[in-house]
């Protein structure tokens, strides 16, 4: 069974209990931060900060409100990070959790460039990448992820991916913008946004339905075209060979 989480944005009160729980459970060091203009703190994910609650203003006119949007690895259905990783250090397990094997990581940071959500971060001390693990060590023992367990308002709902998708569809039918059902092939963490707001306002990228695999296939096609061009350039030159020069070789 694959796991999923539904993030119901307008239930979040911005308490950051999830951030603290994530640090406590995973033993990741806290970052010393500074005041950031939009109150998001720390300002972004890092190799130690695996989840962060973004403080964003969304909506229009009288509907303009402050919302809190928790970010972490989306555990994509077709993860770009996994596709990019040249050594298979990053992998997606049967339960949908995307994990990395630090022994296999060579520190190329391709996953960092490839992930549409800017999630994996290279740790200069560990010489490997680090990111949210979906609390695999809890989930696989029948517990909820630490952040979900800590959430006081049930803004985070943990379940099977099928169940989470079904609930997201229900919200969508009621007119809520939903993120993660299709984007880039879909994600295991799915967001329900308040009506009159847009996921892109909260910094979620506008992704088409193109999956990483489809993009890689286009890359392979481009590579094949370069191969043909190289071969053709040589062949045409060979065809143009000057007869006078040919004698040089015969001699």
């Amino acid at each position: 069974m694959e796991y999923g989480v539904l993030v119901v944005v307008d239930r979040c009160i911005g308490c950051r209990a999830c951030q603290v729980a994530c640090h406590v459970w995973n033993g990741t060091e806290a970052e010393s931060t500074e005041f950031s203009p939009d109150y998001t703190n720390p300002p972004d994910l890092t190799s130690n900060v695996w989840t962060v609650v973004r403080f964003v203003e969304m909506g229009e006119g009288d509907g303009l409100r402050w919302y809190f949007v928790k970010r972490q690895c989306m555990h994509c259905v077709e993860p770009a990070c996994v596709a990019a990783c040249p050594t298979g250090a990053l992998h997606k397990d049967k339960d949908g959790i995307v994990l990395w094997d630090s022994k296999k990581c060579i520190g190329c940071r391709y996953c960092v460039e490839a992930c549409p959500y800017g999630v994996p971060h290279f740790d200069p001390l560990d010489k490997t990448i680090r990111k949210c693990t979906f609390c695999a060590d809890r989930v696989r023992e029948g517990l909820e992820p630490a952040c979900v367990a800590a959430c006081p308002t049930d803004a985070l709902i943990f379940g099977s991916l099928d169940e989470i998708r079904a609930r997201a569809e229900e919200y969508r039918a009621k007119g809520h913008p939903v993120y993660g059902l299709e984007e880039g092939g879909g994600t295991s963490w799915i967001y329900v946004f308040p009506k009159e707001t847009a996921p892109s306002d909260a910094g979620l990228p506008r992704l088409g339905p193109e999956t990483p695999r489809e993009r890689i296939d286009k890359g392979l096609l481009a590579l094949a075209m370069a191969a043909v061009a190289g071969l053709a350039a040589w062949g045409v030159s060979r065809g143009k060979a000057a007869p006078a020069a040919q004698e040089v070789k015969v001699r």
Partner: protein
Amino acid sequence: MVEWGILIATYLFLGGLAGGLFASTAALDAITRGGIRRTSKLGALVSWVSMAIGLILLLADLGRPEHAFRIMLAPHMESPMAWGAWVIVIFTVLGLAYWLGLSDFGGEPLKPLRSALNRIKDLLGALGSMFGLMTAAYTGILLGFSRQSLWRPWALPVLFTVSGIATGYAVLMYLVHRTGEDVGLSPAGLSKVELIVGVIELLVALLYVATIPTPARGAIASLTSVNGVLFWLGFVAVGLIIGEILLPAISLRTPEKAPSPALVLTTAALVLIGGYILRYAVLYAGQVA
């Protein structure tokens, strides 16, 4: 945040140069039916050394270079970086074999190997050109599989390939000039090729900028950013318009005369500088856009 920096920019440049130089060298060698042995040998060597330096820079950039063997021995073949690594390694082997077949390296003991390689020189030249241009294109395809809007347009691998050919060809022209060998083409013919490549590259460069999605385009299209200035002045104006179009056009005005040493050298220098700036500007701008 800049995750890939100067080492990667240099590697992208050297990969394109190596691929383009090999393909140009093998093509000219084919046209002359092997009549320019010294030039071909030098071209293959410079190409191979560029690629080797590029690979060293690539290794130096890794967090754990001692584990790099995994890409070759236990690769995740879906990854563009994994298939690209294989393309590059095959290219370096072909380039080395091509050069060895033309050289006197290793004296008597290596003679049988050298003459065997020399006999299959055509095959090595054809395959090397193929893998050379694949290497040049791969440097752009690698960037294309990312979230960076500036790297995703499909014109980028085309631009990197054409730029690789242009830089390689400029170096080859310098080598031809150095060895003084007869390439069987008139000086005008050689300059014309350069000019045509320059015009194609200019069109591809404009297409590339035009196909970057709007919010990100400014990072390279606008002259208010450092990378924009580098791109338009360093790459487009100096490298492309002056180096690849104006200077070859000047040589064309005296079609019978070989261009002066100063002109050949200046052209090569400008084209190389432009090619380097292209990789640098695109790589950095892509990560801040």
